[in-house]
């Protein structure tokens, strides 16, 4: 059972890291600010979600589970608030306004 949990954690955290790498690659490769925002939000959200999912079975208490889920939730909430604002500013900047 412990081995299964270890394998689950290693696989999901490794997958999470792949998505963080993808987000960083998008930040470098994508052609415009808003596309880079897609990379920094969507790929990184999934990466963080997978890291959190992989760590959940290792939490020592319900508090630890709540803490991990709350971290993902807070990152999602801050991205949802900031992403559209930055995209609006980027569009204005591109129009020269």
């Amino acid at each position, binding site marked *: 059972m412990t081995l299964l949990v270890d394998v689950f954690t290693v696989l999901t955290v490794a997958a999470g890291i792949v998505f963080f790498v993808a987000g960083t690659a*998008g930040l470098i490769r*994508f052609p415009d600010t808003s596309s880079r*925002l897609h990379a920094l939000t969507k790929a990184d959200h*999934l990466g963080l979600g997978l890291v959190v999912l992989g760590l959940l079975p290792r939490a020592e208490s319900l508090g630890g589970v709540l803490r991990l889920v709350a971290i993902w939730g807070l990152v999602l909430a801050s*991205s949802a608030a900031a992403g*559209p604002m930055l995209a*609006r500013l980027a569009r204005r900047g591109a129009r020269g306004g």
Partner: protein
Amino acid sequence: MAAAALVRFALLLTLWVALAGDGWKDLAPGVAAAALGTWWSLRLLPPAPLRVHPAALAGLVLRFPWQALTAGVQVARLALDPRRRPEPKHVTWAPSLPPGRARDAFLAYASLLPGTLPAGDAPDGSIVIHAIAGAGSAAAAMNEEEARFARAFGLDD
């Protein structure tokens, strides 16, 4: 107002306890922070009646991990596959929700969904959407998600 304040205070304090633990030493600043957060949230977002449809809301919440997976995989493929390039386009989309908090909340939610990132208002009152994989189905996807969102929060009655 008092009931809304109590609910928000309880939610903020729960979040604090989830993050900082429930030790007495940690609880005092948590109560102060939750009280300050409640006061500020009531100023920024006065309570308004919401007719939540639990089944539709549960559907929206349970669907979100799949949406996050789809969005992340789509962006990761564009970023990591050298044969693919993003085709970013700005498209205008006419929302059904009237201007206000419900629309703002939906646009924030939509920024987490696959392929779409709201990027402000167009001069004609519609919304500009930044679509990373081409204009194709962005408006249709927004319509579909807006209907789900409105149903979950009883905004379509």
